């Protein structure tokens, strides 16, 4: 098992000032979420309803997928099915190639990050411009988003200024956020007007109407779609909800959970192509059906990508999104990513203290921390744990199960710490002791005290 997360996190923490800033910024968003949630007396009830709707939809997914396809097709939307990332990317490329279009704008879509669409299209001669401000910043820096709602949250305004200066010829060292936003706006407008194809993600797909809903705060999805001739929307199979009346539950929960806003600035409904234009929806599996087939993990597909679990996670806040080395970081990423590639992501379910805060903030009540625990078991059973860990655990399980061995080892341990403190506190032999002292040890165990003081003969 790789130690990628732990190593990446250690590097992130080495810059303590930036770590504190990252932690405080995300905690501020968690606090905004708390205030927004507290403003609705029915908050916990809403979570329960949302969870029930999603669980129901997952239980009848094939029915709703077919219903959605039929209704969307009736509306004049072209539906494509992609079983994996490569199929998805090829469908996008084919749509572009059919009209010989070489550039595309894209609003936020974590699915296209998961599929590595940008790299694929660029390798095939297509220019892709991400139009979400944060996404554009990380794209210019050749990085991946570090957060699914706030893609550039690992960066400060000075970093953005430097990036814009380098790529967009903005004034050097002008860190004024208003100035930088205007630079980005001018730059993005050029691409909005020039691109004939706009790709968007999908927040919700409504089975009974065949329409999709895209939520943004910047209006960039709408700008892209309305100036383009072709709208491509990429969605995972889990984005479905049965009926339009279910939307209110999710729209009320989504932005409150994500940023503490009552609702996203733009909640745009797309039902059919405009006259003379095309609308495509690509429905992607990419191993979601495998997750669906596993009782332990299927409820992870309820996720609506609000990132509340990121913002509350004390580990995420102190290790940064890139430490997770996946398209989706944070606690939810750590239970989704092992399903996509267990070996490469075997470290992620261990990047948690299992504190359970993620489960509590989740608007659709995914038991994230329990699934982290279950993924740990799976990863060990599949043999992706480190050999050293396996040996240590095996030894420990034998000693701890045998009362005599346990008592002897405990005594030895205490004796060691007492008489060889320099050994016990040696950071090279004992990772605990790098930044922490060992506990002061007593002469006798509780059991010894008990036998002496309480045991009835």
């Amino acid at each position, binding site marked *: 098992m790789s130690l990628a997360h*732990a190593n990446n*996190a*250690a590097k992130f923490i080495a810059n*303590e000032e930036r770590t504190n800033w990252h932690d405080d910024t995300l*905690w501020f968003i968690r606090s905004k979420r*708390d205030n927004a949630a*507290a403003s*609705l007396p029915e*908050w*916990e009830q809403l979570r329960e309803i949302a969870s029930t709707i999603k669980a129901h939809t997952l239980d009848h997914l094939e029915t709703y997928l077919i219903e959605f396809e039929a209704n969307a097709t009736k509306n004049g939307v072209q539906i494509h099915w992609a079983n994996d990332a490569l199929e998805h990317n090829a469908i996008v490329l084919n749509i572009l190639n059919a009209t010989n279009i070489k550039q595309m704008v894209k609003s936020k879509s974590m699915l296209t990050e998961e599929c590595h669409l940008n790299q694929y299209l660029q390798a095939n001669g297509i220019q892709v411009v991400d139009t979400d401000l944060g996404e554009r910043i990380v794209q210019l820096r050749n990085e991946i988003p570090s957060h699914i709602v706030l893609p550039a949250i690992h960066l400060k305004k000075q970093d953005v200024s430097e990036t814009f200066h380098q790529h967009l010829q903005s004034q050097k060292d002008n860190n004024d956020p208003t100035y930088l936003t205007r630079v980005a706006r001018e730059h993005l407008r050029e691409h909005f007007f020039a691109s004939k194809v706009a790709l968007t993600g999908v927040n919700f797909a409504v089975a009974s109407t065949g329409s999709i809903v895209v939520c943004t705060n910047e209006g960039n999805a709408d700008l892209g779609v309305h100036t383009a001739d072709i709208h491509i929307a990429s969605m995972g199979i889990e984005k479905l909800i049965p009926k339009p009346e279910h939307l209110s539950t999710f729209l009320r929960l989504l932005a409150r959970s994500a940023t503490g806003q009552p609702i996203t600035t733009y909640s745009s409904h797309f039902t059919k192509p405009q006259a003379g234009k095309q609308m495509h929806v690509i429905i992607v599996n990419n191993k979601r059906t495998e997750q669906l087939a596993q009782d332990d993990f299927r409820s992870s597909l309820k996720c609506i990508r609000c990132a509340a679990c990121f913002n*509350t996670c*004390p*580990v995420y806040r*102190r290790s940064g999104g890139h430490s997770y080395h996946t398209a989706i970081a944070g606690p939810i990423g750590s239970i989704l990513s092992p399903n996509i590639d267990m070996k490469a992501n075997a470290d992620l379910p*261990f*990047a*948690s*203290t*299992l*504190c*359970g*805060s993620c*489960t*509590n*903030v989740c608007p659709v009540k995914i038991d994230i921390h329990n699934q982290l*625990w279950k993924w*740990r*078991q799976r990863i*060990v*059973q599949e043999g992706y*744990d480190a050999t050293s860990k396996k040996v240590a*655990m095996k030894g420990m*399980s*034998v000693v*701890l*199960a*045998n*009362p005599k061995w*346990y008592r002897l080892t*405990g005594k030895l*341990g*205490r004796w060691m710490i007492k008489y060889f403190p320099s050994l016990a506190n040696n950071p090279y032999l004992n*990772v*605990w002791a*790098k*930044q*922490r*002292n*060992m*506990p002061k*040890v*007593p002469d006798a*165990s*509780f*059991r*010894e*005290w*008990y036998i002496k003081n*309480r*045991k009835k003969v």
Partner: protein
Amino acid sequence: MRVQLFIPCYVDQFFPNVAIASLELLEKLGCEVVYPLHQTCCGQPMANTGYAHLASACDSNFAANFNGADYIVCPSGSCTLHIKEHLHVSDTTLQHNIRKHVYELNEFIVDVLGVKKIKATFPHKVGYHASCHGQRGLHLSSMSELMVAAFSKPAMLLQSVEGLSLYYPKRADECCGFGGTFCVTEEAVSVKMGVDRLQEHVANGVTYITGNDMSCLMHLQGIIDRQSLPLQTIHIAEILNKTETLCR
């Protein structure tokens, strides 16, 4: 009332005073307390590291020690939660009975004994550390993420202690970063989390930090000692036991 005392392995070995305080406190509250002599570890270190399948011998030993107990009481939310959720033995009735009858100390005092006040004296400024497994797992107190009425069984007991003034850190229930084997496999994050918790308690000017899990407190005390911070940790049982008389 007959109580079987379940003492976590590391408390037995490193923090006997916490176990003694728990035993004495339960006795003062009128319980007959028995410590099954051949108990070892609940198996949590293996299970939380992904090796639940290696915990079966620990499970059997635990079940053999606590077979037939009316009440199994433990001064740790984390170990209690582990038994409640993950104890597996072939005799499913036994498994069910043990899971049903295991209680964290504060939970037992408040819910089973019905005690809401403890006549102890501890004239100090005390910071409260809400350990995650007791709080979010056993629901010993309300949680900042959930929009429900606030309550806390351990804090209620602490607030009844004479002279004690209770302080909460700014982020009232953020994890301290111990996390079992996490504390060494993710050493950097673990320590950073602990340091951040401690700074909030230092800012409150408390002399002690208390909580119901020695593992969290051991981690925090390790950092306190290394950084020579002006406070110290103390298990809640040690505070509640600061009394000579019957508590009720």
